[in-house]
Each structure stands twice: as C-alpha cells, then as structure tokens.
C-alpha cells in the first residue's frame, strides 16, 4: 500500500532522486571523472602531457555516457585512494579505475552494479589435455594468480609479461584467450565483477550510470578490451 501511494505521488517525476542534485547538474553540463591507471580498463595520461585525454575501455564508456547526457567530461587523473576520498566528498561525479565489486571502497563511496564479469583462466593450446595438474603454466610475476596456480597443482612459470601468443599453457583473462590462439582449459583462477564508483546518496545519478552500464553489450565491451589491449601493447 505504501509502495502504491508513493508510486502514485511521484508518478512521472524523477525517482529515485539525488540528495545533492548531481544528475541535474551534469546533464548538459560537465561530468568530473576521476581516472586511476588500470590498463586496459583505464590508461591514465602522461603527467607531462596533462591535456591529453586518458584512454582505456572505461574512458570510452564514460565518454559515451556523457554524450548521451549532452555533457562534457572533465578528466581528473590521480591515485585510486585520493580519487575515492574526493568522490566521497562529492568533489568528483564518477571514478573509473577498473574497479572490482569486492572493492573495500564500498564503505566510503557507492559502487555501481557490475557491467561485466571477467575471469582469469588457464588457457591451453587447442587439443591439449584440459587437466593442468603438473603442467608448466606461464603467469605474470607477482600476480595473485601465480599463488592460486599452486592450488591447482600446476607449476607456475613467472614471467614479467605473458607473451602475445604463448606456445604453451598460460594464465590470461577470458577475453584474451581466443586472440592468443589458445582455448579455455576450464580452470578459472579468479573472477572480477567490474564496476564504477559514484558519490554515495546521489541515487538518480547512480541509477543513470547503472542503466547505461546494464544496457551495454558484453561482446562489444570484449571488442573494446581487445582494441585497447592491442593499442597498449
């Protein structure tokens, strides 16, 4: 009954509303977006070259969101921690940093719904046995997956960068497996739900960002990832 009353009384109006009117301000205005480097999601610009727009999948998405609102984007590069502090004080409207839904920032800022889930998988040459126990697997040195590999009884071979087309088993993000000429062994080491961050309590703005993210086509995001990966390489 309460729900019905509210639906009737606010019918047609914006719902939910912002506590601080962010959506009304950024529409046809300027979105202040914090960017922390996290290739290929975000590629921050060179500090010696501050006028250059940052790159990466999420910056492309943000630009598209801004276009749909008739807004321009003001990029604010920085470290993740300082950007989050600025976001929680509403100095920024959005932060992109290849964030994970499990991020500890959840306490200070609002994380959007996840728009894509990526897995770190053990990729193997086509036709090779999928059982990786006892096999040598290339993995980026110092990554969490290097430790997770030992749980699978595989031998981790740490390398500074997994080559573009590995000639044996390697740990790769799932969207890169086919491009690397390998197949998914079925062993998924970790999973990341990708989100962006908005100021807490700006629920109309958050809903607008989330609606945009939910309408994204995952295949298209995968394409953007590959494009950015190649550009970054």
């Amino acid at each position: 009954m309460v729900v019905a009353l509210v639906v009737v009384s606010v019918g047609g109006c914006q719902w939910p509303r912002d506590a601080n009117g962010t959506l009304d301000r950024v529409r046809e205005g300027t979105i202040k977006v914090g960017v922390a480097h996290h290739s290929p999601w975000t590629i921050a610009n060179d500090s010696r070259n501050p006028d250059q727009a940052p790159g990466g999948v999420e910056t492309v998405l943000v630009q598209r969101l801004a276009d749909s609102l008739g807004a321009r984007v003001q990029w604010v590069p920085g470290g993740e921690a300082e950007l989050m502090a600025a976001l929680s004080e509403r100095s920024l409207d959005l932060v992109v940093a290849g964030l994970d839904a499990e991020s500890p920032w959840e306490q200070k800022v609002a994380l959007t719904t996840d728009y894509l889930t990526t897995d770190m998988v053990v990729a193997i040459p086509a036709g090779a046995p999928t059982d990786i126990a006892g096999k040598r697997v290339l993995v980026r040195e110092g990554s969490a997956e290097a430790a997770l590999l030992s749980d699978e009884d595989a031998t981790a071979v740490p390398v500074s960068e997994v080559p573009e087309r590995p000639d044996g088993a390697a740990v790769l993000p799932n969207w890169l497996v086919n491009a690397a000429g390998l197949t998914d062994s079925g062993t998924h080491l970790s999973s990341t739900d990708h989100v962006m961050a908005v100021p807490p309590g700006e629920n109309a703005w958050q809903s607008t960002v989330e609606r945009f993210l939910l309408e994204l086509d995952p295949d298209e995001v995968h394409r953007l990832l590959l494009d950015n990966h190649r550009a970054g390489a």
Partner: protein
Amino acid sequence: MAAIHDSFELPPEKAALHRRAVRLEWWTVAFFVVAITVLAAVLGQSQAMKAAWVEDILALAPPIAFLVADRYRNRPVDAEHPYGHHRSVAIAFLASALALLVLGGYILIESVLRLVQGERPPIGLIDILGHTMWLGWPMIAVLLVTMVPAILLGRAKTKLAAQLHDKVLYADAEMNRADWLTAGAAVLGIIGIGAGLWWADAVAAIIISADIVRDGLRTTRTAVADLMDRRPRTVTDNQPHPLPAQLTELALDQPWVTDAWIRLREEGHVFVGEMLVVPKPDTDDLVKRLERLSHQLRDADWRMHDIAVMPVLKIHR
C-alpha cells in the same frame, strides 16, 4: 502429605495454552531463520538493511531463551537443586530483556553515528530477470513481507503471555513489536532516500530505536527485580500482584489465626514463599491446621507453588 512440592504441573487449560506458546516460539525461530537468510541475499550496500539483519539475529534470542528454559523449568527437585528449576524462566527473561535493550541501543547508536557523519545511503538499480528496477522497491517489499508475521506472532504472544503469566513470552512479544516497528521505519527511510532525503533513514531509525531502548530498559529492570525477589507484579501492566494480600486475607479468615504475614517471590511463572501465622493460644491440632492452611493457600491460585507455613508467637513488624 507431600510437603515437598517436587514438581509443578500447569492446570489442564493452562497446559494447552503453554503448548500453543511453545509452538508459537518454534514458528518464531523458523520465521527469523528464513528472514535472516532472505535478507542476507538482498543486503546490498544499505546500512539500514544490514541493521535490519542484525535485528533479526537478535530477535532470535527471546524465543531460543524461552525454548531452552522450557526444557528446564519443570525438572523435579533433586539433591543439587533443592528449590527446583523454576528460576530458569527468570534467567531466560533476563536474557530476552537484555537482547531487547541491546537491539534498541545498537540501532540508536548506529543511527546517530550515521546522521552525525552525514552518511548518505546509496541505493541503485537491480536487474531482476531482465527487468531493471530501483533496488529500493524489492528492499521495501522484503521488509513489508517480514513485518506481517512479526505483527501476527507478537499479537498472539501478548495474549498468551498474560494468560500464562509468562514474562519471557511477553518480552518476546515486545521484541516482535520492536522488529516490525524498525522494519516500518526502514521502509520510510528507503522512501526518504528515494526522495533524495539522505537523513530520512537515520532519523526514522532514531525515533523507533529510542522507543525500543525505553522498552528494553523497563523489561531489564523488571527481570533484575524479579531475580532480586521483588514482590510479584502482573505481567502486562506491571502492577503489584493482588495474590499476597488475598492469601493473607485467607489466613486471617481462619478462626484460629490471630495474625498472619506473607512474603512471596516469583520464580519464573510460579510463586513461592513463606507465611508466618500467630495461632490463638491453646489451639488444638495445630500441626493439622497448619497443614490444611498450607493446602488451601496452594489451591488459591494456580501459580502458587510452594509455601512454608510457620507458627510463631508474635510477628514483629
């Protein structure tokens, strides 16, 4: 001639009510276990929902205390426990009262902190089976659904508690009331958040929790007082119980009694105590008369369990 009352049996109609109370408490436990599970699934980032979840966990304390005490309360007297096990009910009552107080205090402190720190609850969108909707709506739906059983259970328990003189049951009914009130406050808070009023959630919670704290303090005070052997009071309106006066009257009505004094305490749902009587000089068959009186006293009320009647020469008041 059983002067040692080693066990207490409820009168048949009260026993039936008690069985209903036990069933109700099992339903309460089942309901809260389900509510805790469902809430855990939709918790999200909302502090208000997290508070509702903690409340539901605390709300398990009174029914569990009731059911545990129910196992012990009728155990017969043994060498280790010469006074029986009725006090287990008083302990359960204290546990329930404390749970209520902690619940209110927890929500109050948490809401004040949220308000002072200017915490703004984010509630975004959720995708349910391909339909995108504001997460606030399913949150409100879950809260409203959990309110209904809490209201019904609470009402049934309040009625039974008065009939059974059962304070644990009464404290649990208060807990159910606290639960649906906070859920109602959370609904208002979520609607407020949707309207862009970030403080609405905290303010609604503060008002409700202040009420629960008051309730919890009153109940805890009663529980402690009962353990201190305060004179019996009625369950629902907390007035001095009329029974001690009635029993004194009954003793004074005996032609051979010139003066009488009684003290009673509550041990859970039963009364125990002592009575001093001054018999007329040269009363014959005094032992028999005393025994008959003690039987009459016991039969005067179903809660009157154990009373020692002692003849004295004079009562010093």
